[in-house]
C-alpha cells in the first residue's frame, strides 16, 4: 500500500476503531472476542482499503465487514498469531456499571445471532433498515421481523422485575452453574 493511502487508512482506523470495538462487544458479549473481531475487521479494512474508500457508504460497508466477521467467527485470535505484536496493558475500565452491563449482555446473549446483530445495528449503530439489510445480507422485511422479535425478547428479559435479582438474570445463574442458556 502506498504511504499516502496507508496514512489515510490509519486515520480512519484511529477514528473508528473504538466504535467498531464497542459494536463487536455488543454483538459477541466478550471482551477478548470483541478485540479479535475488531482487529480482524480492521485488518480487512487495511487489506481492502481501496474498495473501502471507494464505497458509496464507507461506514455501511465497514459495518458489513464487521458483521460478517462476527457471524463467521467463533474463537479466533489474530493477535495471538503475531509473535511479537502483543498489545500493551492499560488501566482497567471503571467497573461501576458491571451489573447492568452483565444484565444487558446476558439478555443479548439470549438472542439468535442475526436478531442480535439486527438490534445492535439498528439501535446502537443507527443504521437504516436498508443499510442493516445490506450489512446482514438479507431483505429489508427480514430485518424488520428479526428486529421485532429481538426487541420483544430483550424487553421480556430486561423489564420483568420478578425475573431479575440484583446483578443477575436467570441466564447468568445457569451460566455460573455451567449450563449456558
Amino acid at each position: 500500500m502506498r504511504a499516502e493511502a496507508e496514512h489515510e487508512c490509519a486515520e480512519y482506523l484511529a477514528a473508528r476503531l473504538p466504535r467498531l470495538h464497542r459494536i463487536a462487544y455488543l454483538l459477541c458479549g466478550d471482551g477478548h472476542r470483541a478485540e479479535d473481531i475488531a482487529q480482524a475487521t480492521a485488518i480487512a479494512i487495511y487489506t481492502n482499503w481501496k474498495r473501502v474508500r471507494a464505497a458509496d457508504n464507507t461506514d455501511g460497508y465497514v459495518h458489513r465487514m464487521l458483521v460478517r466477521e462476527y457471524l463467521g467467527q467463533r474463537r479466533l485470535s489474530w493477535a495471538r498469531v503475531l509473535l511479537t505484536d502483543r498489545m500493551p496493558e492499560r488501566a482497567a475500565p471503571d467497573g461501576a456499571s458491571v451489573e447492568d452491563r452483565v444484565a444487558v449482555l446476558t439478555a443479548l446473549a439470549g438472542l439468535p445471532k442475526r436478531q442480535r446483530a439486527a438490534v445492535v445495528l439498528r439501535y446502537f449503530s443507527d443504521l437504516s433498515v436498508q443499510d442493516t439489510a445490506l450489512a446482514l445480507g438479507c431483505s429489508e422485511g427480514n430485518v424488520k421481523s428479526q428486529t421485532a422479535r429481538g426487541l420483544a425478547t430483550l424487553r421480556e428479559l430486561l423489564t420483568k422485575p420478578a425475573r431479575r435479582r440484583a446483578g443477575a438474570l436467570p441466564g447468568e445463574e445457569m451460566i455460573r452453574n455451567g449450563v449456558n442458556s
Partner: protein
Amino acid sequence: MSDDVERDADVRGWLSSVEPPELRLTPAATIRAGRTRARRRRLVVSGAAAIAVLAVAAVPAVASNLRQGGSTPAPSEQPGASASAAVACKATPLAVPDGLARKGALKNIVIATAIDPSGRYIVGRTHGSVNNSPAAVLWTDGKPAILATEGEDVVPTAVNSQGVVVGRGWMKAAPPMSGGFAWIYRDGKARQLTMPSGYTQDFGSPTVNEAGAVLAIVYTPDRSHEAVVLWPAGATDQPQVLSALSDKSIRGVGFGTDGKPVAWSRSAKGPVLWSADGQHRTLPLVGGKSGWVVNTIRGPWAVGTVLPESGKESQVPLRWELRGGELTALPAARLGNAVDVNPAGDVLVWNEILRADGRVVTLTVPAGRQAATAGFSDAGTTVIGLIGPAEEATSPSEVVPEVPTVWHC
C-alpha cells in the same frame, strides 16, 4: 432518526449503557498486522510453498542494524549491554511435516511457538482458512510430527524436557461459548484436561513444568469470572483452583521461583505479581511510556516490554527479578520486545540474546529478511522463531516465504 427508533429509546439506552473493556488495539498495531496479513495472503495466492534452504554463514556477531536504529536510551543496569560477543547463532529451517493439508492446514505457514528447557523439543501451530490452527506440530531433535489432537483449533503453548506438550484448544460445541479446553500430550496421546465445574473457556496459555504439572487461566462462559487452575503432574482430571489467584483479572501465569505458580494482573500502576498464597506486589516500570506487557514468567524472572504510543519511538525491554522485584531496563530498540528469559537471566529480545553478563549475541538472519523469535532453551543456546521478509513484497517475484526456524548458538 425514525419514529420507530424514537419509540424504542429504552433499547437504545440499554445498548448505550454497555461499556466494553478498554480497547488495547492500536491503529499502528493493526496496520502492522494488516501488512503481515497482506504478505501471508500473497504467499498463499502465489503458491510459494517451497521452503528455501537458508544459506547462513556463521559470522561474528555485531550490534544489529535494528539496535543501531534504536533511539532513546532507557535507564539500564545491564553492564556493558552494548558490547557485542564473538558468538553467532546459526539458523536452520524447521522441516514442515507431511499431511498438513489433510488436516486443513496451509502447508507453508507453520509457526514455532515454544521450546523445552533442554532445546530438544519444539512445538508449533499451523494455520487454517480462518486463522485457526487445525494441527499442532512437535519437532523432536528436528524431526516433525503432527500431534494426534482433537479440535478445530489446537495451539501448543508449552513443552517440557520430557516431551510433554500442553496447549489450548477449541471445538465446535453446544451450548455456545463452551468449546474451549486445555489439553496435554504425553506418551503419544493427547487428552483434554478436565475443567473445574462452571468453567468452560480456556484462554490463558497453559504452561507445563518439568514434573508435568499444568497451569492455566480458565473462564466462565460469560467471562465474568476467571480462575487459575493447577493440574498436578499425571492428573488430568483433578483440577485445583488456586483460589488466591482467582477473580483477580489475572493476565498471565508461570512457574516462578522454586517452581511455584505465580501470576500477574494489570493495574493502573503496572503489573501486579501474585504468588499462590495471595501475596502480591506491583512491579516497577520505567516512566514516560503508557503501555506495557509482561510476556513470560520463568523461574526467578519475568520479562516484558514498555511500548510507546508512536511507532517511531523505541520499546524498552524489561526484566524483573521476582524475589525482590528488581527491575532491569535493557537498551531500548524499535523492535525491543523481550519475549523470553532463561534461568541465568539472559533475555531474548527480537533477534538478539542479551546475556546477563552484558554480552549481546545476534541471531544470523539473511539479508533482506528479519526474524521474530518466540523462545529459547535454558542454556540460551537454542532459539526458535520465524524468518520472514523484512519488507512487504511489491510483486509476486519478491515474495519470500516465512520459515519456522531454529538457531543454534
